[in-house]
């Protein structure tokens, strides 16, 4: 029997970026908020020994404990799904701050095109441009409507970027709050090459602070030291924006916020029309608690948001046969491939140094920034170079034809340890009728709930896109004058083993109509007005950009919706 706790106005499931932003904003407004986090509390004091590639990057110290919960995966409905038993393709966060602790800090805004992808595609190319089974749809909000929220998130985090607006991305109401990061020789090489080719390079917007910064909440953070340990690591300086060094202290200061760690939510209590609270397990003692609340905010990662809605019977589950229902619909990933590696025989770079978001990109082949009339795909990829810190276990690049071990491997991997650069596209992912997340019929988590099951593969559209952008990457690397270039323009089936990106999206998508979306533009569930499902689960498709900037903006948008709901009730429009 669960112990019943006193009712709270707002309970948040998951205390990462999204949960932290919502907790801070609501508690500042005087709303009492309870945050439930299944993992442990932590702070910068825990990162004193963080420059440990083995512990953090190879052994995933900061990630979700897969012995308790994971996902299952299959490429198509024709085969049985298999549990993801160890990490590979993407890395799930756990503990206070969630995935905001171990991200790189690359903070893009999605393009104006992204939010109206269906309308803009039809407008420019006609309906026949959209292949059968591709389920792209508009998001129920435009870039211009979302712009103030992007601005808010960037000021919160202190995003560093170019002073001059890049003409190929969405217009900004304000310049970046901090100056761009240091333009290293590596970046200059890319910049010169891409400019020469007529493209529009700009500094990667960065949550690794380029300078000391005080945000509108009065939180001051130190500048990045370029130590080269961002992705998969926590930042001991607090220079990399995360929930623990920005929003959570703000929430705590108000006196209106309570945090409960080691609290894993296993059910959202509801009667199909309204939620009455949640049930959570104390992960240390195994004891169950019922937590009544007026409003439930789902702020955990994509898979957990979907899973909890399905197991709690909230919203209509997606049916891939009819295409009806919404929970689990439009699961997307990203398309990583087509990069060009350049081996420089006559140059050594300081590749051991870097920052997670130290890089440049060209947006010329992302979104609809180029003409797709004669191409067999829509959308595209951002093409980048980044200098994130070349760590020695992970990075042992050798030219093609070199054996993967032995004398020649040793020789070549040492020779190029500081002389290999990569130009890499990060491609969009379009939704398809047969790509979705539902509940696995066989495998269960440590609490007896079914694991979420992913059905996903790359499509011909993705192969065509990678072929196209691979040509551009190789062209840029050639212009950068590498001695030897290694590149591939082939994209195989989606494989859950090699790491690609933690950019999983969709499943609880936003939109203008309840028939085709789960939440409205305030991330409020159409079917259950006092539940808000916030995060990349709301993306109706995935762009060629890193998702966090858009996630942050949507979190601020949700805050506005929740505040309105607390005052007036009903569906917010």
């Amino acid at each position, binding site marked *: 029997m669960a112990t019943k706790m006193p009712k709270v106005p707002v309970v948040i499931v998951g205390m990462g970026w999204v949960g932290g932003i919502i907790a801070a904003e609501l508690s500042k407004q005087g709303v009492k908020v309870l945050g439930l986090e299944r993992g442990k509390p932590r702070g910068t004091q825990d990162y*004193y*020994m963080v*420059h*440990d*590639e*083995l512990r953090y990057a*190879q052994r*995933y110290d900061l990630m979700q*404990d*897969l*012995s308790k919960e*994971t996902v299952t*995966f*299959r*490429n198509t409905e024709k*085969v*049985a*799904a*298999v*549990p*993801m*038993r*160890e990490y*590979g393709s993407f890395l799930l966060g756990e503990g206070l701050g969630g995935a905001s602790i171990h991200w790189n800090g690359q903070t893009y805004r999605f393009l104006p095109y992204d939010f109206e992808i269906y309308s803009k595609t039809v407008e420019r190319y006609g309906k026949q441009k959209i292949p059968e089974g591709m389920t792209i749809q508009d998001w129920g909000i435009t870039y211009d409507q979302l712009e103030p929220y992007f601005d808010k998130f960037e000021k919160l985090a202190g995003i560093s970027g170019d002073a001059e607006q890049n003409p190929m991305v969405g217009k900004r109401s304000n310049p970046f709050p901090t100056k761009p990061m*240091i*333009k*290293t*020789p590596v970046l200059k090489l890319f910049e010169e090459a891409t400019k020469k080719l007529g493209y529009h390079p700009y500094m990667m917007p960065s949550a690794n602070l380029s300078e000391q910064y005080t945000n509108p909440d009065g939180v001051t953070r130190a500048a*990045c*030291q*370029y*130590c*080269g340990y961002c992705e998969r690591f926590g930042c001991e300086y607090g220079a990399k924006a995360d929930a623990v060094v920005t929003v959570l202290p703000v929430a705590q200061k108000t006196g209106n916020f309570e945090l409960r760690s080691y609290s894993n939510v296993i059910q959202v209590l509801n009667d199909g029309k309204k939620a009455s609270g949640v049930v959570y397990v104390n992960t240390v003692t195994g004891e169950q608690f019922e937590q009544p609340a007026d409003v439930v905010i789902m702020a955990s990662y994509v898979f957990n948001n979907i899973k909890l809605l399905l197991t709690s019977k909230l919203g209509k589950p997606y049916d891939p046969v009819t295409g009806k229902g919404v929970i689990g619909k439009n699961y997307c990933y990203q398309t990583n491939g087509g990069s060009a590696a350049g081996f420089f025989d006559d140059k*050594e*770079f*300081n590749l*051991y*140094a*870097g920052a997670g978001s130290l890089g440049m990109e060209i947006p010329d082949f992302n979104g609809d920034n180029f003409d797709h009339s004669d191409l067999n795909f829509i959308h595209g990829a951002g093409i980048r170079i980044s200098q994130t810190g070349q760590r*020695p*276990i992970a990075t*042992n690049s050798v030219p093609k034809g070199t054996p993967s*071990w*032995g*004398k020649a*491997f*040793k*020789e070549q*991997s*040492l020779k190029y*340890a*500081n002389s290999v650069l990569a130009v890499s596209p990060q491609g969009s992912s379009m939704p398809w009728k047969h790509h979705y997340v539902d509940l696995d019929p*066989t*495998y*269960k988590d440590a609490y007896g709930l079914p694991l979420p099951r992913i059905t996903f593969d790359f499509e011909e559209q993705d192969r065509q896109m990678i072929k196209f952008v691979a040509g551009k990457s190789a062209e840029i690397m050639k212009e950068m004058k590498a001695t030897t270039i290694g590149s591939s323009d082939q994209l195989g*089936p*989606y*494989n*859950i*083993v090699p790491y690609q990106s933690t950019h999983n999206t969709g499943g609880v998508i936003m939109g203008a109509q309840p028939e085709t979306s789960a939440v409205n533009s305030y991330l409020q569930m159409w079917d259950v007005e006092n539940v808000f499902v916030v995060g990349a689960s709301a993306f109706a498709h995935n762009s060629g950009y890193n998702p966090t900037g858009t996630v942050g903006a949507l979190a601020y948008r949700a805050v506005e919706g929740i505040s309105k709901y607390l005052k007036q009730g009903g569906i917010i429009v």
Partner: protein
Amino acid sequence: MAEDHKGKSPDPSRRSFLKYTGTAIGGVVVGGAVGSALSSKFGNKQAAPSPSASPQAPQQAADYNQAPMFLNQSQLQITEAAAERIFPKDDKGPGATDLGVAFYIDHQLASPWGVNSREYRTGPFVKGEITQGDYQSIKRHELITMGLQSMEDTSKTKYSKSFVDLAPEEKDAILTSMEKGEIMVVNGITGKTFFNLFRSLTIEGVYSDPLYGGNKNMQGWKLRKYPGNQMAYANIMDKDQFVAMEPRSLHDHFAH
């Protein structure tokens, strides 16, 4: 311990003496612990000095980290011999043996990682498509010990010798067969799965922080001019030339 304070590589003649003596005794004391202890080349190990250490540097004490936590003597020897082929010593610098990789691997197998403690272990274990992951129902430490045994068995069958006594090309031939999956480790698990894990372990042992037992004296990092654990690079980011620096380890970070 007197000879341990010379601060240089073990005397090769002494090493081979112990090795051959051990082989001979091992032949008599079949499988006996005494024989295998004597045949061990690990008992004679000294801490290798850092190549960049100045002549005035204090001499290295014995490295008490170098004792097996998990593997037996024979498994440790095969591990060392195989790792050395994957990352061999050459004129540029040390290989897996001198970097302590075998001890690194042993220590990892003894750790929670060796028993897959943070992985999903609920069955059924079904063999899926390649794209669904090559996940084993046996634990990592079992995969490694079974793989080592399988290499030893192959060696005995093919060359009538122990793996550690093979010529370099013969060792490479067995490792290559492993890598290609031509050798079976145990029920349905091919040598390929073993090899991939073993190769990763070797690379980790070469380049992980020395606190784990490998990358001895940060020599793995020095090979590739990696500065290890520095607090800041902000002042060199715009420099055009390569900036070399003496590496630092997490040991240097630790406030005693």
